[in-house]
């Protein structure tokens, strides 16, 4: 049909040509029904019209519309927690745009969704309108934010082997606690729940349960208490250990014997899926080292249902013969290209090796610079060419932190405020600056910098600056300024060695009547007068760590051995060796009881005949609880501790969730027995009176403790009673400190 003019009826504020511009029909041109439908759709989709009718009478097209009301002003009332700007972004209607009822309801729901994301599911939104004449209306979304929706309880059903407290530690969503407004981890959100489910699955697969199944995760929202209860129902299945573990290959020429050493999954150990993956990666690297870079390692497990063992056979097959054409790194808006590329042991042009790429992905995730690392392979420019695409997403790596620490003398507790940047300028460098203050007006300042890839080697080089003042002693205060430069080299992925040169300069300032012999031993008076003292030393240490987590280790070993030589100038000339080791072992999975045994020891010997007081070891409450800070070891008649040339301590501890206290305050109890000794003195005591405590008497104590996992770090309250001590030792039964795991 053809019309030669168009008539528009019912338009008020929107002009007739606005309506015409939406039509697909033009006078003089033929059009079909489809054009009419299309025009109607266009008019509706503009949102300006609540009703549209198009009809043809004679040679005129009649378009009859009824307009929607127009919004004059759209406002949000009653919102405190979310800004107007953010809400405007979530809703569809806006000032001066068309108004329609259905869209307003949709907007109300969108506002509720926005609030649900910040943990408020108890929100009421109602829509108020006020006419302004001329078919215009003001619209207000009135929001009643309600209270913060808490997570009242997280239940676990079917977890016969692991205690609720342990599983609660595995997932990220936490129960609401009085302090959780700080960490915001108690917000229910569905994708976080998906992540929690896979974390539970990984946890069980890595702790002996290949058949673990999560039957259901139900979330019920209780209206009146405005809180959620999460329940994870699971079936653990049987617990498996590793049966016999072997390597076989279909690629001749691969020497299988040499590969046994790469395997981490040893017979008799608890089944661990992650260890299987790591073993495959190191086998693949070893096979590639034997000249077979294309080889692929496929672990095959087969189950023995009678004795609940899984025997694992790492099969080496000939992988696809493809070469990496390019490694494309995308998404790095901050981290530099080379910081990512250097984690790959393969270069462009090398053979494509699946396990080596998995290892690079594991390293990149370990850096902690990215919220996500996705590695995908795409076809290259030839059939045997592959392009590796590494898509990362930078996450902010800077953070403020508040922590508790000790002052220079290790006596007074200080509260430290720190700024830390783990990926400085995207170069992977680490920077931390912190300042702290505590009682007895003690102060502490720290600055440290580390470059993880010094001159292209996988060597972490860095330096630290340290300044502290403390006057916790009665008759003297102590000021120290120190600096060191260090170089750390990884030997295996658990063992590393560090070489460090440090220069310390410190001074003792007299306080009160320090010059009277009855108050302060002449040895210390010499220290005050003889200051400032400098110690210039170099030390080499081995550090070993195979613990499963830094925060709350349950399995594994932490150990360190340090050789120190002081005497490159400065006032100290000695050689000292110190060692410490702590072994963690689960005593009971059901009750989540962690056992740990700690051994420490140290010996210092001067090059010429004497040592200074500050050269000798200060042993006390930190090593054997129940004693004062420098409570044991040689001391003057005035009670000033001279420190000891030799010490050895041992401590056995059991750590468990506190039974009665509700779980939501993360509190753990501890019971322990400490024992040890500190003896020997090489300080020139000719000017002082008799010295006690140079013999190697055994001290021992038993005690209990409470560990609070606070936002300021793990704080610890200990009460220990020495049951074997010397009469001149200084006892301190109650002790408040930080629970440094090492």
């Amino acid at each position: 049909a053809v019309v030669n003019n168009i008539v528009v009826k019912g338009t008020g504020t929107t002009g007739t040509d606005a309506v015409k511009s939406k039509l697909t029909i033009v006078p003089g041109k033929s059009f079909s029904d489809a054009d009419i439908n299309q025009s109607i759709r266009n008019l509706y989709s503009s949102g300006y019209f609540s009703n549209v009718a198009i009809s043809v009478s004679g040679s005129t097209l009649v378009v009859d519309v009824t307009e929607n009301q127009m919004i004059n002003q759209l406002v949000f009332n009653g919102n405190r927690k979310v800004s107007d700007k953010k809400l405007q972004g979530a809703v569809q209607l806006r000032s001066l745009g068309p108004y329609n009822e259905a869209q307003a309801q949709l907007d109300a729901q969108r506002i509720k969704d926005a609030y649900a994301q910040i943990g408020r599911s108890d929100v009421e939104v109602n829509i108020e309108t006020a006419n302004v004449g001329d078919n215009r209306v003001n619209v207000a979304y009135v929001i009643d934010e309600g209270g913060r929706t808490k997570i009242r309880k997280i239940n676990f059903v079917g977890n016969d082997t692991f205690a609720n407290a342990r599983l609660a530690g595995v997932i990220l969503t936490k129960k609401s606690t009085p302090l959780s407004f700080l960490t915001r981890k108690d917000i229910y959100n569905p994708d976080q729940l998906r992540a929690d489910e896979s974390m539970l699955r990984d946890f069980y697969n890595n702790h002996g349960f290949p058949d673990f199944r999560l039957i259901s995760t139900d979330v019920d929202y209780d209206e009146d208490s405005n809180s959620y209860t999460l329940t994870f129902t699971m079936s653990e299945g049987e617990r498996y250990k590793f049966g016999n573990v072997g390597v076989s290959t279909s690629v001749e020429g691969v020497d299988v014997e040499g590969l046994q050493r790469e395997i981490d999954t040893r017979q008799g150990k608890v089944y661990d899926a992650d260890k299987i993956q790591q073993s495959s990666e190191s086998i693949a690297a070893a096979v590639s080292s034997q000249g077979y870079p294309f080889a692929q390692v496929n672990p095959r497990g087969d189950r023995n249902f009678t004795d609940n063992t899984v025997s694992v056979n790492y099969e080496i097959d000939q992988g696809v013969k493809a070469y990496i054409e390019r490694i494309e790194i995308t998404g790095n808006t901050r981290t530099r290209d080379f910081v990512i590329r250097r984690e790959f042991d393969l270069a462009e042009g090398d053979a494509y090796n699946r396990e080596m790429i998995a290892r690079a992905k594991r390293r990149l995730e370990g850096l902690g610079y990215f919220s996500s690392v996705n590695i995908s392979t795409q076809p290259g420019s030839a059939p045997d060419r592959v392009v590796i695409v590494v898509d990362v997403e930078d996450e902010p790596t800077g953070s403020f932190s508040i922590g508790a620490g000790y002052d220079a003398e290790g006596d007074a507790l200080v509260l430290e405020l720190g700024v830390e940047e783990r990926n400085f300028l995207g170069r992977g460098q680490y920077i931390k600056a912190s300042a702290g203050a505590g009682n007895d007006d003690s102060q502490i300042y720290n600055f440290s910098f580390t470059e993880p890839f010094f001159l292209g080697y996988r060597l972490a080089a860095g330096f630290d600056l340290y300044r502290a003042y403390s006057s916790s002693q009665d008759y003297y205060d102590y000021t120290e300024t120190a600096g060191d430069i260090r170089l750390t080299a990884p030997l295996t992925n658990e063992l590393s060695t560090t070489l460090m040169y440090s220069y310390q300069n410190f001074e003792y300032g007299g306080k009160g009547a320090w010059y009277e012999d009855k108050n302060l031993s002449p040895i210390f008076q010499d220290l005050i007068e003889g200051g400032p003292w400098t110690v210039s030393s170099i030390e080499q240490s081995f550090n070993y760590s195979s613990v499963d987590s830094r925060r709350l280790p349950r399995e594994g070993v932490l150990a360190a051995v340090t050789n120190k030589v002081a005497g490159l100038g400065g006032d100290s000339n000695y050689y000292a060796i110190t060692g410490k080791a702590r072994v963690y072992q689960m005593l009971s999975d059901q009750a989540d009881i962690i056992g740990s045994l700690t051994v420490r020891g140290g010996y210092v010997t001067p090059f010429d005949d004497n040592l200074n007081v500050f050269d000798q070891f200060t042993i006390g409450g930190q090593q054997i609880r129940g004693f004062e800070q420098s409570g044991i070891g040689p001391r003057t008649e005035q009670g000033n501790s001279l420190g000891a040339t030799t010490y050895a301590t041992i401590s056995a501890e059991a750590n468990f969730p506190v039974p009665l206290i509700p779980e939501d305050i993360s509190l753990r109890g501890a019971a322990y027995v400490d024992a040890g000794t500190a003896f020997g003195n090489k300080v020139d005591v000719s000017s002082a009176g008799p010295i006690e405590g140079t013999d190697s008497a055994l001290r021992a104590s038993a005690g209990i403790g409470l560990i609070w996992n606070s936002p300021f770090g793990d704080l610890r309250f200990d009460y220990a009673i020495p049951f074997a001590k010397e009469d001149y030792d200084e006892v301190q039964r109650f002790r408040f400190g930080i629970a440094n795991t090492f």
Partner: protein
Amino acid sequence: CSTADVIGTKDVMYQGYVIDEDMLKLVKEGSSREQVILSLGEPSTTATFDNEVFYYISQVKERRFTFQKPRLVGQEVLAIYFNDSGRVDRIARYTMQDGNIVDMVSETTPTGGKDITFLQQILQGTGRNAARDFFQSAGGGGGSAIP
């Protein structure tokens, strides 16, 4: 861990093209370009301005400890020269001995683009989520000087 772990076994890396001697026997003078690609696969690279020459480059590197830079210990370049009619004219093999010591020129051609400054990162990185991070990464353990 066994002692071998501590000293670190020698980590050998075979990089680049993996030469397969018996496949190489199939390529002789007169073979066509397609025959070469069929038996040896695509070349690692070709001559810069045309593909009259196929280069198959393979390297062997070693490192004793994980922190060391892999040291180039073996290198073999298989060069296949084609004549104008696209037939293999000559095959040459270059090894480590042919290599030369080159210390790279450190100067580079300037490039543009804005770079993040220290201040920007501190404000952007820590500023934006200072609140969230303020308590979350609760640090413990201060500068105690006691063993």
